[in-house]
């Protein structure tokens, strides 16, 4: 195959993976010998940092491949960067979180590193074998991470739910892969893509394979009707785990979808087009409608993320470079915004249950004005109000849809946006309502100090959201440069 001449160039492709894998081993050793929680945290954080920095070495040599299994291109670089940034934030917010809950956190960081490695494998995979490997590498650690607080019964429930989800989706995915293999005779992405790009040559069996593949990925993305696990897992999992599920693992799966079924293919194939349209519209509509009545913020954000997956699919349904850019923009917006929103939730969570009831946010702007502002920015970004990254992302998706003349889809998107304002505003309202309302509500977390690093991180993320919203040209240039 396309082997690079020198061995070291090959290895360069998987440098971020190697760094992560090596770091995991070091973390394992550290967990065994150094009994302090802090040591493992340091190892994990520096591993993630080094892996992030190693992207810098790799980027000038893009795209580069490693055997048939891996292809590291600009899209992989962008998603890897996002995934590593997200994991870093998860690690930094997990340490104070577990300290406060008096749960030994050493093993958590090892699992986190493994799951991150899984994400990296997915975003650079060019072969069904490596894709499946990556998906399992995310799924198994997440089962344990979800149930990490053994004393907490909902934790066990979350672990089980995620286990069943991972099992079912893997089974569906594998069957889909098998059917596609039957059609194309290869497990690499290339032949399967080439097969789907010519609708005339596609057999029904291949279509069923593609549909199963999409269903498997739909489970991971929590598209309606594969979404039933998401609200429970988002709500029940410890806040840092929710953070990971909502950002890193989702970004990885979206990237895989982009690799497998780029907008061009979806546009060409009629069956895929119908399937994606149905998934898109039902996801955004059901997600938003179900979010309207939620009293639990984590659950509300879970439904909101379902709706956002639906919005994103509009870009997959569109053609041209606009659609490609829109998906990547959306990815960046989505990860940073959710990091910010769930990051604040995680910071506010006290030693008892997580701060996830809407009442916990009543009058937050009095108690913690800065965090309230940060959360407001991230909520506005989710809603897609101008001057935040959310607007730019949504705008680019709508633009892509309009350019392909999918007027009905675009209308569904914007009407859903107007509907979603209702529940996003409920969170903002709760934070800013008057003092007389606060007094009746229980001020649970008012006296606790917020960890400085966490506060800095969410502030940085909120700043990024505003920066992208005001000056998106830099991000657009970066995306253009990475893709070309």
């Amino acid at each position, binding site marked *: 195959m396309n082997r690079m001449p020198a061995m070291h160039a090959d290895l360069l492709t998987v440098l971020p993976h190697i760094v992560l894998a090596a770091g995991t081993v070091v973390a394992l050793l550290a967990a065994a010998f150094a009994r302090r929680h802090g040591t493992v945290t340091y190892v994990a954080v520096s591993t993630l940092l080094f892996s992030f920095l190693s992207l810098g070495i790799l980027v000038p040599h893009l795209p580069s491949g490693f055997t048939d299994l891996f292809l590291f291109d600009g899209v992989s670089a962008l998603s890897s960067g996002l995934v590593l940034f997200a994991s870093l934030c998860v690690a930094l917010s997990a340490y104070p979180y577990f300290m406060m809950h008096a749960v030994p956190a050493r093993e958590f960081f090892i699992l986190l590193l493994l799951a991150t490695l899984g994400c990296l494998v997915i975003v650079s995979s060019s072969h069904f074998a490596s894709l499946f490997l990556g998906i399992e590498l995310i799924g198994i650690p997440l089962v344990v991470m979800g149930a990490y607080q053994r004393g907490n019964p909902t934790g066990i429930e979350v672990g089980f739910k995620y286990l069943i989800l991972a099992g079912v989706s893997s089974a569906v995915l594998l069957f889909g892969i098998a059917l596609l293999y039957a059609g194309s005779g290869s497990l690499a992405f290339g032949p399967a893509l080439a097969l789907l790009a010519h609708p005339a040559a596609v057999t029904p069996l291949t279509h069923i394979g593609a549909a199963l593949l999409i269903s498997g990925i739909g489970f991971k993305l929590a598209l309606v009707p594969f979404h039933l696990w998401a609200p429970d897992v988002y709500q029940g999992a410890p806040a840092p785990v929710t953070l990971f599920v909502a950002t890193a693992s989702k970004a990885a799966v979206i990237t895989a979808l982009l690799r497998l079924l780029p907008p061009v293919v979806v546009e060409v194939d009629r069956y895929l087009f119908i399937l994606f349209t149905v998934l898109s519209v039902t996801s955004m509509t059901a997600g938003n409608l179900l979010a309207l009545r939620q009293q639990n913020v984590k659950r509300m954000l879970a439904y909101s993320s379902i709706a956002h997956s639906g919005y994103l699919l509009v870009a997959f349904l569109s053609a041209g470079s606009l659609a490609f850019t829109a998906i990547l923009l959306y990815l960046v917006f989505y990860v940073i915004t959710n990091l910010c929103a769930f990051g604040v939730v995680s910071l506010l969570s006290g030693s008892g249950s997580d701060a996830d009831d809407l009442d916990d946010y009543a009058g937050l702007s009095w108690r913690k004005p800065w965090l309230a502002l940060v959360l407001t920015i991230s909520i*506005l970004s989710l809603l897609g*109000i101008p001057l935040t990254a959310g607007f730019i992302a949504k705008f680019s998706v709508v633009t892509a849809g309009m*350019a392909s003349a999918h007027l009905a889809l675009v209308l569904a998107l*914007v009407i859903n946006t107007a509907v979603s*304002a209702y529940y996003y505003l409920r969170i903002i309202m709760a934070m800013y309502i008057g003092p007389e309302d606060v007094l009746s509500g229980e001020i649970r977390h008012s006296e606790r100090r917020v960890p400085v690093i966490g506060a800095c991180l969410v502030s940085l993320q909120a700043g990024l959201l505003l920066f992208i919203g005001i000056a998106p040209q830099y991000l657009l240039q970066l995306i253009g440069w990475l893709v070309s």
Partner: protein
Amino acid sequence: MLELIPNQLGFPLLSLLIFVPVIGAVVLLAVRDARAARWIALVFSVLELGLCAPLLSNFDSSLAHMQFGESMPWISAWNIHYKLGVDGISILFVALTALLTVISIMVSWTAITDRVREFMVALLFLEAAMVGVFAALDLFLFYIFWEAMLIPMYLLIGVWGGPNRLYAAVKFFLYTLFGSVLMLVAILAVYFTAGGTFDVLSLMNHKFGHTFQMWAFAAFFAAFAVKVPMFPFHTWLPDAHVEAPTAGSIILAGILIKMGAYGFLRFSLPFFPDATMAYTPAIMVLSVIAVIYGAYMAFAQTDFKKLIAYSSVSHMGFITLGIFSMNSQGLEGGILQMINHGVSTGALFLGVGVIYERTHTRVIADYGGLASKVPVYAAFLMIITLSSIGLPGTNGFIGEFAILLGAFQYKAVYAVIASLGIILGAGYMLWLYQRVIFGTVTNPHNEHLKDMNLREIVAALPLVVLVFYIGLYPNAAFQVIHASADNLIKHVHAKAQVLPAAAQAVSTLVGN
């Protein structure tokens, strides 16, 4: 046709007008003390008002072109520019925005005691966005400012509003957002149809297909009609007004609802002249309904603010009636009446605010006999009431007269029905005045009412001056408006084609 005349002042005046309030808001974030916050906000808003002096004095009213132009690429990947400019249609609104913001800050001086800093920050951000809406000449930029107004206004109502503020704030937000997102789709449709440009001036010269115009006009209409608000999209307005703090009501009535009408003038008419012609009969009918219905509802109100809110619905009906008369009298009258309504309704809400701060009631029946207790206030309210009615010698007369002239030329029956609205307006406003000011004091709480203090008089004075200035010397305002309005009406008539069959069907449907 329309050109952008580059700014020749040596400093970017329009950008300053947008960013001075933003800077003020940022400075405020560093302040904790409520007193200091009030003064800083006042200083920045007065500075902003001062900047309107070079704006008005350097404006060449003989030209219809966009002046004080600024343009630079912003997001080149999507061909988006940071492009500003004002003409005779928009310039007065920039000035009015600056004036009403100063007044809003002054009337909130003692009325807002809670989270003063945040209040002022919201007000200043709102001001920046409003100026931006009037100055933007790039559709994307316009949309950014348009949406950016939502959040501060939402917070003004939702945080500092009355008891039912949450409901009112959400209703305001959802109604407006729903209109805006449809407009966004239309903006993108325009962008792609015109070959990838958001530039307002070049879009004005682009000829869109007839069917496209009909759809795009409808989508823009969704945003603007909610904002105006036109009957039957008006239901958010009474709620928002009743719950909003005085400053919020002044801004809402004075500027925000003018933006709908401004949107028609700046975008709908020049972009889609065919569709404008086709929809005009329907819009005229809606306008007349709004005039009568608003007045009718105003009679039934027991709440001071709600009465004024419904009177706004009625008056805004006049304004759309004038604009869609499609002749220069109606159009210029409509634009002038937008300014007038901003002045007099802003003053009316100021009047409500002044008295509400003392009595904490808006129920009209709780008042009565105030003339003997608060004579200055009674005089002020008298002037504003007369201006709102449109008595000759006040600003309201000029605007309504010009609108009726225009409407008469379009179709006499509309002018006749609309003049009925004027009579009704005189009815409910005078009745209101009588119930509040005349008679004997029935409510013991009002026995020791204090009259307007110096701060309130200073805040109210510019509006009173404007009432008479425009009323006695309307030419000053007409001169500014004339060239641009005239150009617009010629542009629309020149660009519009002969009514095709579909449009005629619409016309006959509404009984033209």
